[in-house]
Each structure stands twice: as C-alpha cells, then as structure tokens.
C-alpha cells in the first residue's frame, strides 16, 4: 500500500466523474495532436516542395539574393562547373549530397505573336535531368509526388510556363489548360499577328513563320531577354505545358527553360555563368553541416568572386512565416485546451477534497503529515494527466491513421492543385512527447491547489464535516 495505489483507487472511486475528466483530457490531447499532425504535414509538404524546386541550399553570389534578379550576369557564378565538381568530389559533401545543379534566372518579355499578346516574364534555366532527380526527393514521405518535369527529354527549345503566363499569352487552348477562360476583348481583337521579320531573324531558327506550320506538340512563344553585354536576344520556344507555381504572382511570370537554352539566350557565345548552384541533400538535418563544409569549399573560389550559401529557409521566407504562423496557432490551441484541462481537473479534485473531507481528517489524525495529503492529491492529478494524455495520444494516432487512409484532399491557399489531407501524428515524437508531458504537467498543477487546500484542513473541522 503506497501513495500511488491509494491515489489510483481513489480515482476509481467515482468512476463516472473520473471518466468524464479523463475524457476531457483525452479529447483535449487528441485535438492538440491532430492539429499538430496537420501542422507537421503542412511543414513537410512545404519543405518538400521547396527542396524539390530549389534544393536545400543554394550557392550564390553574395549579393544575388538582394540585387541579382535585375542583372543576373553581374551576379553570376563563373566557373560553376568547377565549383559543382568540387562539391561532388568533396568527401564530406559527397555523403550528403543527392543533386548539385546550376540555375540561371533572368528577366525578359515573352510574346505570343500569333495571338498578338506579350508580357514581362521571369525566366529560369534548369538542367532537366537534375530537376527530375530533385523532384523525386521525399524524405518525409508526403505522398504528394511532383509531376514529371516536362523539359526532361524534350527538345532544347522546350519551355514550361506558369498558369498565369499561359492565360495571358492565350496558350491555354493549345496546352489543354482547364479553367482558363479567354477574355472577350482578347478573343475579338486577336488578329493572329505574324512575328515581325526582324524578331524572327533574331530568334534564328524559326525561318519563315508566316508560311511554316509547326506541327509539334505544345504552343509557340518568343522570349526576349537582354544579353550580358546589353544587347537583346530572342529565343523561339515551344511551351510543353503550363504548371502551377504555387503563387499567383509567380504563376503570372514564370517561364522555365533548359539551362543550355537560357545560357545561349543570356550569354550567347560568351563564357556562361550560373546565378546559383542548387544543392539538394539526402536529409534536411544535414543542412547545418553542409553549410559549414560548403563555406570552407567556397573559400577556394571566393578570391575571384564573393560567394555565399543560403538555405531553403532564407530563400523562402514564406515557408518560415507559414511555419511560424502554424506554430503560433498550435501554441494558442495548446494554451486554450491546457486552460480547459486545468480547470476541469482542478474542479474534479476540488470536488474530491470536499467529498473526502472526513477521510482527510482521519488520515491526518492517524499520522499522515500535511505533505502526505498534498502528495496524495497531486499524485491523483498526475495519474489523471498521465492516463488522459496517453489516451489522447492513442486516439490521435488512430484518428490520424483513419483520416490518412480515407484519402481526403484539400486545396491549400494559393494553389490550384488538390493535395492529400494528411495528419502526421505517428512518428512526430517530439510533438507527442511534448504534448503528453505538457498535459501531465497541467494535470499535476491542476491538483496542486486542491491538494494544498486539503492539507490545510483543520483536522477537527474535517472530522466533524458532514
């Protein structure tokens, strides 16, 4: 017979009340964990998306992130193949790296001269084979496979545009984009203008565009960009598909081309530069050691050009802001539910003190110290916390598994794509442990005041209590 056993039996004394209290705690714990599971899935989904698109790390010119978009050639990385090879050959990096690939971003104007429309765009040159490998990365098993990269295996003039670009350049019909209404004004005024001869000549390979029918798949656009020496250059591109870029702002301007095409467009026959090297790692936890190692490696190249390493969080502030927001909501929910649990358990314990006043007096009379009474009630609160929080964990795991198996989908803000609705509870050990310990602590603290009240009872008054 010890305090634990006595406390456990006291909990079983009024089963209905104990069960109600435990249910409140379990439901609270399950609610916290289910939201936490949703938060975790959002975090992993976003992280996976960003890492697939841009890698864990990017090596850039020190000032590129802030100033480079306007003039990529001024902030490019010279000898990027040498740097890539150095990274791949490094014994430390080799064990962590899955992909190292260059990218070249530039600004320009894309035009669909057949439809008589054009717009400013933000172009990106990528190595398709590397992007295909990057898109296969799935450390967190988010069950949201990226679509095949359309440029992989395509001709050199292939391009991908954002949904907004496709809409504005009236490419939706050619690309088979759904939900892409054509404005009346445009449809009336579209004159299927011919590409001016000078532009066609600049674009090079198109030949006589007035008469030549291009029967290949996709839609035709021309992309005008400024070369490194300031002269304009034009590339005739075949748009393979329109892809959702996640944000409307990006969707309205994104044009993806092969790195070789971008290199040709921006640098012509001059030595090419990359605006960044994307480094994808096998595991996200290797970001810090990889940054440390890359910093050492870059020192070898830095005398010629100031280079810096940026991780995906620095490159994607929206990711950090979103996770911070979810963390704040999670914290708010925890505090809210914790408060409810606190008052529920406290109320139960206070009622127990009143009901057991004579018993408390008896225990004190036969020699149990005040501290013993406190320990008894606090142990009961602790047990309620343990059982309730553990039950809540089990409920959350079962419910989250059921929801995950149900195959529900949802449409995240800013996305046109339906994503699987998943709750990542099982395996989130830190969240489960933290929530469980937090609720156990709250359960224990809830009993502290009633326990103190019980121990302070006057023995004579307690024995006289009716």
């Amino acid at each position, binding site marked *: *017979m*010890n305090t634990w056993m*006595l406390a456990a*039996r*006291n909990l*079983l*004394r009024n089963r209905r009340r104990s069960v109600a209290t435990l249910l409140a705690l379990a439901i609270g714990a399950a609610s916290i964990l289910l939201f936490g599971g949703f938060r975790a899935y959002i975090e992993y989904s976003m992280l996976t998306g960003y890492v697939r698109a841009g890698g864990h790390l990017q090596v850039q010119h020190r000032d590129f992130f802030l100033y480079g978009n306007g003039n990529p050639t001024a902030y490019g990385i010279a000898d990027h193949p040498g740097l890539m090879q150095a990274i791949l050959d490094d014994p430390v990096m080799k064990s962590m790296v899955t992909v190292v690939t260059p990218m070249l971003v530039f600004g320009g104007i894309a035009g669909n001269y057949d439809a008589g429309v054009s717009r400013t765009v933000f172009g990106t040159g990528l190595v398709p084979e590397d992007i295909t490998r990057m898109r296969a990365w799935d450390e967190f098993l988010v069950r949201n496979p990226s679509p095949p990269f359309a440029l992989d295996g395509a001709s050199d003039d292939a391009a991908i545009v954002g949904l907004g670009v496709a809409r504005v350049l009236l490419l939706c019909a050619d690309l088979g984009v759904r939900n892409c209404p054509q404005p009346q004004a445009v449809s009336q005024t579209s004159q299927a203008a011919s590409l001016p001869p000078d532009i066609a000549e600049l674009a090079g390979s198109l030949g006589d565009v007035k008469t030549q029918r291009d029967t290949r798949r996709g839609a035709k656009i021309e992309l005008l960009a400024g070369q490194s020496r300031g002269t304009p250059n034009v590339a005739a591109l075949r748009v393979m598909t329109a892809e959702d870029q996640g944000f409307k702002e990006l969707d309205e301007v994104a044009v993806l081309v092969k790195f070789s095409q971008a290199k040709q467009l921006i640098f012509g026959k001059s030595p090419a530069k990359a605006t960044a090297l994307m480094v994808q790692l096998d595991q996200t936890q290797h970001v810090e050691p990889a940054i440390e190692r890359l910093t050492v490696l870059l020192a070898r190249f830095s005398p010629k050009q100031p280079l810096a390493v940026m991780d995906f969080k620095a490159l994607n502030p929206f990711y950090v802001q979103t996770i911070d927001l979810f963390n704040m909501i999670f914290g708010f929910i925890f505090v809210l539910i914790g408060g409810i649990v606190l008052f529920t358990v406290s109320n139960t314990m206070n009622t127990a003190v009143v009901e057991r006043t*004579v*018993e408390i*007096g*008896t*225990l*004190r*009379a*036969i*020699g*149990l*110290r*005040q*501290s*013993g009474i406190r320990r008894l009630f606090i142990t009961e609160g602790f047990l309620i916390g343990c059982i309730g929080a553990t039950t809540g964990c089990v409920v959350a795991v079962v419910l989250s598994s059921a929801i995950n198996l149900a195959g529900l989908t949802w449409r995240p803000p800013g996305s046109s794509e339906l994503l699987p609705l998943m709750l990542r509870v099982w395996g989130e050990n830190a969240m489960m442990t933290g929530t469980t310990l937090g609720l156990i602590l709250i359960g224990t603290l809830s009993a502290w005041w009633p326990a103190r009240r019980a121990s302070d009872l006057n*023995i*004579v008054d307690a*024995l006289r209590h009716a």
Partner: protein
Amino acid sequence: MSEAKLEPVAVLKGVTKSYQMDAVEVPVLKGIDLLIRPGHFTVLLGPSGSGKTTLLNLLGCIDRPDQGQVVVAGCEIDQLDEAQRADFRAANIGFIFQSFNLIPVLTAFENIEYPLVLAGMEPDRRRRRVERLLDAVGLADRADNRPGQLSGGQRQRVAIARALARKPKLVIADEPTASLDSQTGLAILALMRRMQERYKISFLFSSHDRTVIKAADDLITLRDGQILSIRRKAAPVVEAAEPEADPDFVDTQADQ
C-alpha cells in the same frame, strides 16, 4: 512499583479552549486540570456541549488549547510543529471514531496496515502484525473485504485493530458504540477491554452508553467545560465533587 507511581499517560494543566461562533466566542473548556492513568479504561461523561470531544481532541493532539499545557506520553505537545504532531500521533495515539472512519478504498487488511506503512515498517513484519490483529479482532477471514462489505460491528473491529496497530500509548475513542446496536456495542466493548488488557494500552472514551460507563476504571464527568467529578475504580475517596450512585466507582479528588 505501585500504580500511583506510574507515569500518567496524559496530563492537562489549566487548559482552556473556546470556539468562535460567528462573532461570539464560546468557551468550551474552562481551566481543566486532569491526569489520565496509564493502562486504564477512562471514560469521559457529560451532556452534549460539556466539552468531552474537545478534551479528546486536545489529548489526541489534533487540536491546540488556547491556554494551559497538554502533556501526552511525557511530551508537551504544544511545543511540536504540525509535522512533529503528525508523527507523534502516528506513534503514540490510536483513534476509534463513532462512524468508524475507515478508508473506503482500502481492504480491512490495508486499513489496519496503513499506520504501519506510515511508520515505514518492513512489509513482512507489517503483514505478520496485521494478521495477528485481524485474528485478535476476529476478522481473519474478512481481511480482503472493503469497509462497504462489512457490518457496522466488523468495521469498528477493523477500526480498533487499526488504532492498536502501532501499539500506541493512548487510544482515544469518541462514542465508539454509538453507531452500533446494543449487542454489537457490548461485543465491541468487550473486545476493547480484551485489547486493553492484552496490550496494556490506555483507553480514553467519551460515551453516554451505560455499559461503557460500567466498564470504566476511571469516570470523569464534565459539565459546562469543567470537571464535575473524577471517580477512580478501587481507589479511596479523596474528595467527592458530586457523588454518583454507581457502586462500581469510588470518587476521587480531581487531578491537579
């Protein structure tokens, strides 16, 4: 050694106690001087409100006097803090309550065992002692029953065993037979008498039950918070404050 030279189990000197009833202070005990003889059955007698229970509470170290000195088992208990008083009670005083006051979630065995657990006694020794006590109170076959599964008499037997578990110097029983029928009350009284003789423990009762009064060695009569008389069995009359007609008792002088 003669009985007169034995150390008293409890001594009260000039003890006063009053309770606050709303704005009014009600005196309950008014300058009590009393000596409780060791190894005796002592009964406190008096009408309701005479101060019997308050006196028992003071002697049981669960209450403090406003004035005066309370010495139990040679210890001036007013000098002890709360934790020391709890330890003192556990070691020296057993309680038997009118309503038994057993812990409902514990079995008969565990109720008796509980004071021994508080004392930190090792499990084997504890078990042996509890089994002996259960046997002594005739409940060996009810060890695993909880209070709710026992009759009133059986509960009081468990309470008696619990009170005796740590072999206290003094057992305080507040109306121990009041909740029992007369037959059971007689049996319980006989049991307590046997226990008292067996373990040489002092019993201090408050009671209105004539059978209890008849069984008493010392009879202390209280009225309005003062001792009206003290009669000690088989002792010469020193002073009769208010003689009673019971031939089993001979009045003695009130202890100073």
